């Protein structure tokens, strides 16, 4: 595992001034493909590194070490199979949040989920306040159109909500969060309240 393809793709794009619009479309498509290949290769490397770090932290207490990490490059159009399908299958989603900067960060992350009945815990098992936001029609339509264009098939299933929750990540380090479906009702994410304007009302 390495990042050679990504290095080559970036070097080529930068050297040839690959600014959108100022090259022929088939050339832009070639740059995009090379960067995509590089991204996929780097994703594998990062997944392996994160699994190694997480398993080191878990040490010998764990029977089944963490293996396959996946990323969601199409998260911006709400396409994220690991978060959607895992919850739908009744399992919990483990999210490792990595901070590449040398200062502590407090941010809110958002992932698409297929159910409104979820709750979030940090790595100590402490429950984290979270919020559900319905996906907009625009997001749905882009997801449908572009996921099909980029992955070749229409995405199976539809997420219903964005799940938003605050994360705190140490400098050049990572934090772990878990999203689960509750066994009993009571401790679930807060649904957003929706207000629509109607004329001046």
């Amino acid at each position, binding site marked *: 595992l390495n990042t050679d393809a990504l290095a080559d793709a970036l070097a080529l794009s930068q050297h040839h001034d690959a600014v959108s619009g100022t090259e022929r479309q088939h050339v832009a498509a070639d740059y995009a493909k090379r960067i995509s290949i590089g991204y996929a290769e780097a994703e594998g490397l990062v997944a392996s590194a994160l699994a190694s770090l997480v398993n080191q932290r878990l040490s010998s207490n764990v029977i089944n070490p963490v293996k396959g990490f996946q990323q969601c490059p199409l998260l911006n*159009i709400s396409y994220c199979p690991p978060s959607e399908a895992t919850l739908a299958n009744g399992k919990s989603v483990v999210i490792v949040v990595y901070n590449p*900067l040398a200062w502590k*960060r407090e941010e809110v992350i958002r992932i698409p989920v297929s159910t409104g009945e979820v709750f979030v815990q940090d790595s100590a098992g402490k429950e984290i306040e979270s919020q559900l936001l319905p996906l*907009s029609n625009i997001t749905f339509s*882009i997801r449908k159109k572009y996921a099909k264009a980029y992955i070749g098939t229409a995405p199976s299933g539809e997420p219903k909500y964005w799940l938003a929750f605050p994360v705190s990540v140490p400098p050049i380090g990572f934090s772990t969060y*878990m999203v689960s479906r509750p066994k009993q009702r009571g401790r679930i994410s807060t649904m957003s*309240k929706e*207000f629509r*304007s109607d004329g001046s009302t």
Partner: protein
Amino acid sequence: NNSIEVGQGNLKLLYSADEGKLTQYVNSRNLVAASVEQSYSFYSGYVGDGKDTQASGAYIFRPNGSFPIKSDHQVSFTVLRGPILDEVHQQLNPWVSQILRIYKAKEHAEVEFTIGPIPVDDGIGKEVITQFSTTMKTNKTFYTDSNGRDFIKRIRDFRSDWDLEVNQPIAGNYYPVNLGIYLQDSTMELSVLVDRSVGGSSLVDGQVELMLHRRLLHDDARGVGEVLNETVCIADKCEGLTIQGKLYLRVDHKGEGAKWRRTVGQELYSPLLLAFTEQDGDNWL
């Protein structure tokens, strides 16, 4: 008072209830209050004719008129509120919409715009912009980053090292924006950071303008040899691209915006990475 207040932390934005337009930016922590409006419009691309053959294209920006993008009817306006963030969803027309987010723990607004496919069946190429307008008296001056590094002072219709003859009053004042753009007057600063490289300017005092998307129908004959009219095709049906990006808006007292621009700018450049895996049952360890 016929206005809608959005945001549950220090930052609040006020919208007029009847038009759904942003009107006020208020930070209750540092007591910043400013009148801020936002609008969308497009420039039509210059076609090039017998007298003046240079058309708008990938390299050449020659706007041929500005047209506001307004909804034919009441702007669809939806507010979502919750413990972490508030969202304002607005659909201006079938190909321009945005979601504005205010996180409870942050003191800036995040504007996620979705634009496209830009219609060109009227035979007109379009370059879509958004503008943030304030009452700040900025005296022709604004600041843009230099490829993510220092912000450099720009003065409308002026260059410090040669006598500028302005032939294109809009394009001649456009600058590359890779990190952000800001304005300041004697009391306040308005900063806008971007998540991608765009063009931007301040063509009117107190106003910031950013070009977000474009689709043109003529080659500018400067070397590309192709029209800037990319499409995406699904099942043999092709349409113009739809793009989605984010802007980050903040108002500060004069001199207090630099720290935010540098730190948040770095965070946009190096976002948190998310990696997912699954686990059975309640074994959170």
